């Protein structure tokens, strides 16, 4: 996993509906490790139906043919459905928490930056601020870059979650039931 800045369209997003069973995340992670596929980011949470969870996996398309990745994932008994989301045709969101050095003299600059990006100040210390920002991954990338010169003390990103745009057809939708 990495939180490095990425070219917007070289990754692919797999939205994977899985049965909410023990070990299902280990199965998916193990499959990626075993077959040498790279996971760029991974987010997991239950869905509206308690029997299922949704994994949003951002994969590096360079690391293996996407088709083979999807087919191998399908072989996991607990995988119910896989939807490939084209980044251009889906909504992606990510959350970033960061603590940044902020001596009183420059604190104003940082607060201004947070306001421009629509972020929030969560905590204020003697010489540091903890900030949250939510948005499209590219926006979060930009914010992180702009903040870096001030001195990042600690940083955590959630990895992205995504859903298809409502107004356009998805480029590929793969249902397990053929």
């Amino acid at each position, binding site marked *: 996993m990495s939180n490095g800045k990425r070219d917007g369209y070289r990754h692919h997003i797999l939205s994977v509906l899985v049965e909410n069973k023990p*070990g299902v995340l*280990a199965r998916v992670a193990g499959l990626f490790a075993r077959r040498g596929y790279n996971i760029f980011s991974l987010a997991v949470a239950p869905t509206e139906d308690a029997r299922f969870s949704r994994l949003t996996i951002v994969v590096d398309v360079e690391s293996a043919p996407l088709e083979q990745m999807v087919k191998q994932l399908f072989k996991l*008994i607990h995988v119910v459905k896989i939807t490939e989301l084209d980044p251009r045709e889906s909504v992606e969101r990510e959350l970033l928490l960061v603590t940044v050095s902020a001596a009183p003299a420059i604190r104003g600059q940082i607060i201004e930056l947070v306001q421009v990006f629509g972020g929030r100040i969560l905590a204020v210390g003697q010489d540091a601020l903890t900030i949250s920002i939510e948005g499209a991954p590219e926006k979060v990338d930009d914010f992180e870059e702009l903040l870096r010169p001030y001195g990042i003390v600690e940083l955590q990103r959630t990895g992205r979650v995504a859903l298809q745009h409502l107004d356009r057809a998805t480029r590929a939708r793969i249902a397990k039931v053929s």
Partner: protein
Amino acid sequence: MPQINGGQALIRALEMEGVEVIFGLPGGAILPVYDPIIDSPIRHILVRHEQGAGHMAEGFAHATGRPGVAMVTSGPAATNIVTPLCDAYMDSIPMVVITGQVGTPSIGTDAFQECDTVGITRSVTKHNELVTEAADIPRAVREAFHIATTGRPGPVLLDIPKDIVDPKNPRSALEWYWPSDEALSAGLPGYKPTTKGHPRKIKDAAELIVRSTRPVIYAGGGILKARAAETLRELAELCDIPVVTTLMARGAFPDDHPLCLGMPGMHGNYTAVTSMQQSDLLIALGSRFDDRVTGKIPAFAPDAKIIHVDIDPAELGKVRRPDVPIVGDCRLVIEELVRAVRELGGGAAQPDRSAWKSTISGWQERFPLTYEQSEPGDALKPQFVLEQLRESTPDDTIVVSGVGQHQMWTSQYWKFNHPYTWVNSGGLGTMGFAVPAAIGAKVGRPDRMVWAVDGDGCFQMTAQELVTAATERIPIKVAILNNAYLGMVRQWQEMFYEERYSEVYLSPDLPDYKMWAEAMGCIGIRVESPEEVQPAIDKANDIDDRPVVIEFRTDSREKVFPMVPAGAANDDIITFQSHREVVQ
């Protein structure tokens, strides 16, 4: 319904699945499940090592097509059965393995004989499950057999904590039930294998077939899994197309059929390898473009269009992109293909392929499988032993091998005229497979003669299971081709490591195989000269109340040819003839 305990439920569930035999070995965590076995009609075969239980279950499944069942305890027993699980996974063998586990309150505490069995076996099973409630047992067993035997078959493991099967523990109580078909599929929302091929793709495939001028059918183990041998024959005869049978498909198409070209691959015969290389259409049926078949992939069958039929969608395009991919069960798809070809006019609609056929028969004449007979006083030639054995046994004998030179020679020199007569470890290449797998095959097919052909290195890995065979009166026969070496490794060191032999010498005399066999309750025979071969085989064939082991002292310098060196293109095949020219 009356309450029963989890152990009883587990055994009853196996009975419901029609299980006739369990290969296993009890221990602490699985103890409560062993008690109801006493009252069950299911036969239990007590192995001497858990690896043996796994390979026996595989051998049983190979020979019968029914899922093999093995049951062992937790910890070291579970880790000992990892090799058979991986073997079965690689070769798509239906198998259900039940492991004991420490009680649920102890899981995660590093308890005695605890290990993370589902974690360890996750990547070597089609599916596995740690069952945590007694009430889940019937459901879990039903699902395990369903998953193991449908779609692309494979091993499924159920890990059973002691507390849910122990009658002294209230957690083991459940009300017996047996899941309906509807409950079964509702419980597996993500598992619906595609069996019927897409009609458009089948039509495309039929059109490619009737237009092709140099077609070859590349038949793999999927033919046997799908019980499609008859259908394959119908297609081959209808379209008059030659067939190669991979190591996993030997017997899927009869070797004595005029269209049969035998085994392709690294040690395949020249005609099988070269016909694929020069074909204009490869019809891959239940085969997976394994590296041992393709050699260097970019140079494999460069002019061939590919029709690829497999029940596992992930195999299509994994190695070579097919022109016509068809996901489905081999038998159903081939039946449809036959129909589609008939609609296009059948064999008569095809172009004249006499040039292709005469090219092929030319190769068969020029490059037959061959070896040099031994000089008087020299050690036996392994190929000679195999020819004698082949000629002295019934046509439907089940032959089981370990892994290495002896396996390749057996696959090359035997004539497999019936499906399910060849049992071996293809994908994983598990040395030591032969003896236990032969026992499993004989248990499944007691009406058949079962010969294990083994190497001396392999035999030493799992020979203890002959004690099981002797005790249980399972009269298998074992031919050890004793060349005193890890022969295949020796061959590579001779050919590719400048004859620097590193750690491959075993010993012709240590152990004494005859005495060892006798110590295990078998008849032991040693054969050193060609005249002794036939009488020894005849004697072994006459014994039907205990296992027989014949040790054949064979020539350690003998190599397996033809050979495509690892990573080389199939066009660079080394035949016996070309190797001899280079050496001389």
